[in-house]
């Protein structure tokens, strides 16, 4: 056989530019080290000092970035436009919140060693069954993944097996998160009603107020994000990634090749939900509260906008999008909070019209411009021959 079909060639040309693994993780870890050093070594007032407030803020952004990765995995790669990923994020957050509530012990307002304050307030005398075990770290870690994963599995199995897709699916995901919001608002649900879970004191025995805990949480989030990025990178570059892309572009055709798209969709939906749950769990100790407002359909839409801005179908794009839009939100809401939603909507329209591939779609173009300027014009991209 004289044909030269090298697989490495393919992998290089197609993917490395889209999802640079080492570069992204490298930048992420270097940033983390710099922030850590800036926080620990440089005194307040120094130009290189990173305040505790900034550390917490960055930690929050990284949670959003992890969440954006989850959304990108299902939307960018598999074409499932989920407008309900906030539900998975919030469930993960509640799992962590329950654990943190139990950590309060008898230091609550009512000083009840067994029951969280809101239960005492409701005149409950014992823990509801679904709070059993919530004081154990292992339980918390399991629930962070199991809660969102199970919901995604049930929802996905029902929706994908009956071949619901497109707008209908998106509306169903919105309805799902909205229904959960209404449910969690009710006191009888046993999750603290509209106040949610808050007034946390400690995590794993470390005070949540102390700067070192805040820094540790930030570092833990960065590491979680790096690992999640690695996992997503592995998935999208495996044959699974190709099947899922094929499903996105021509689902019915995939069936005639022998794959069951619904299995793939459920699987990737569950993985994505678990990543979102992890993001929620890391978020709660850093912001100190979790309440049903996080289920708000608006939040889920905002996540999709992060990915659209950063560039769907690009993993690092999702991270960039989440961080940039969240930063913009922080700045914007400080000046004129009531206008933020308009700004967000405007941003979405602009990106859809002008940058359909998002910021990540812009980078290769810029890179190529630079290269073609430097090199002779005949060193065009290989595909240009067609």
């Amino acid at each position: 056989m004289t044909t030269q079909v090298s697989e490495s060639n393919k992998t290089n040309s197609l993917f490395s530019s889209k999802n640079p693994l080492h570069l992204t993780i490298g930048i992420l870890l270097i940033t983390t080290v710099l922030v850590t050093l800036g926080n620990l070594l440089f005194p307040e007032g120094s130009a290189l000092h990173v305040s505790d407030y900034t550390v917490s803020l960055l930690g929050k952004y990284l949670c959003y970035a992890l969440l954006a990765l989850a959304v990108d995995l299902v939307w960018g790669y598999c074409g499932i436009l989920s407008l309900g990923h906030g539900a998975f994020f919030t469930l993960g957050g509640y799992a962590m919140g329950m654990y943190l509530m139990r950590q309060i012990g008898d230091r609550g307002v009512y000083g009840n060693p067994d029951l969280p304050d809101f239960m005492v307030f409701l005149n409950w005398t014992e823990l509801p069954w679904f709070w059993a075990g919530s004081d154990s770290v292992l339980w918390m870690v399991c629930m962070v993944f199991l809660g969102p994963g199970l919901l995604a599995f049930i929802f996905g199995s029902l929706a994908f097996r009956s071949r619901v897709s497109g707008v209908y699916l998106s509306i169903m995901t919105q309805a799902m998160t909205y229904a959960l919001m209404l449910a969690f608002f009710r006191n009888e649900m046993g999750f603290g009603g509209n106040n949610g879970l808050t007034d946390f004191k400690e995590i794993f025995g470390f005070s949540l107020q102390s700067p070192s805990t805040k820094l540790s949480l930030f570092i833990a989030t960065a590491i979680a994000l790096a690992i999640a990025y690695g996992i997503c990178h592995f998935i999208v570059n495996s044959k699974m990634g190709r099947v899922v892309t094929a499903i996105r572009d021509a689902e019915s055709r995939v069936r005639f090749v022998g794959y069951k798209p619904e299995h793939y969709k459920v699987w990737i939906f569950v993985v994505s939900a678990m990543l979102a749950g992890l993001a929620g769990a890391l978020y709660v100790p850093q912001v100190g509260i979790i309440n049903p407002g996080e289920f708000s359909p608006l939040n889920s839409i905002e996540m999709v906008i992060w990915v659209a801005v950063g560039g769907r179908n690009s993993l690092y794009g999702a991270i960039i999008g989440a961080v940039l839009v969240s930063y913009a939100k922080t700045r914007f809401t400080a000046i004129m909070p009531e206008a933020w939603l308009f700004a967000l909507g405007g941003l979405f329209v602009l990106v859809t019209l002008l940058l359909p591939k998002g910021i990540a779609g812009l980078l290769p173009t810029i890179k190529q411009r630079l290269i073609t300027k430097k090199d002779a014009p005949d060193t065009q991209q290989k595909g240009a021959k067609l």
Partner: protein
Amino acid sequence: MNTDKAGTPLTASENIVPDTRHGVILYVEDVNLSFDGFKALNNLNLYINDGELRCLIGANGAGKTTLMDVITGKTRPDSGKVSFGQQVDLLQLDESEIARAGIGRKFQKPTVFEELTVFENIELSLKGDKGIWTALFHKLSGEQKDRIAEILHTIGLVAECHYPAGRLSHGQKQWLEIGMLLAAEPRVLLVDEPVAGMTGQETERTAELLTSLAGKHSVIVVEHDMAFVRSIARKVSVLHQGTVLAEGTMSEIQSNPDVIKVYLGEEQG
């Protein structure tokens, strides 16, 4: 709406082997299908022998594509029987199960995975386990790479193998879809209008390829290009208004008065 019978033995054991002791690999018996009262298939009977190359002709709207939809599980008939070999009831299986059982299809309108490269299109179509965990940890074996290279060579897309399939010309997409079909190594190939958009030379190559496949595989070809049909046909079935009007060699068909009246008549003026 679709079959979701958990634990059907046919899905559990991935290796469906059709029982072809009677020499027939595909039974289509008394199949009826109507769309809003319009009878697209009307008491249709068709038997395809193991290893046979069968041409299916018929005017636009005769029901050729619909028949393929029924065989591959895309559309369920209102009544009738469709089986793979004697025992495997295709009406109990969904599209992906039918594909894995060994019935491959090339669509009338070429449909390839546009964002994936030519190479990847063929990779995904390769025969083998189509489950999630395999997909996650799958690495192409040397043998599989050779097979892909061989197919790329056969379909003449070696130079284009790393292009996104969406950038191929119409004719090249036709070839790619044929390549995907070859990669799946099906027992039965359903080929809907393979030479539309191909040059004369390419048409000849397709004819050669399809005839060489017959014997080891059973091939059903739908085509309007009569010269092409003549060049490959051994046995031809004529479909008319959803039913088989005549069957036989090309010369038998051409001299069949019914056929002349409804089909060839129009074409030959």
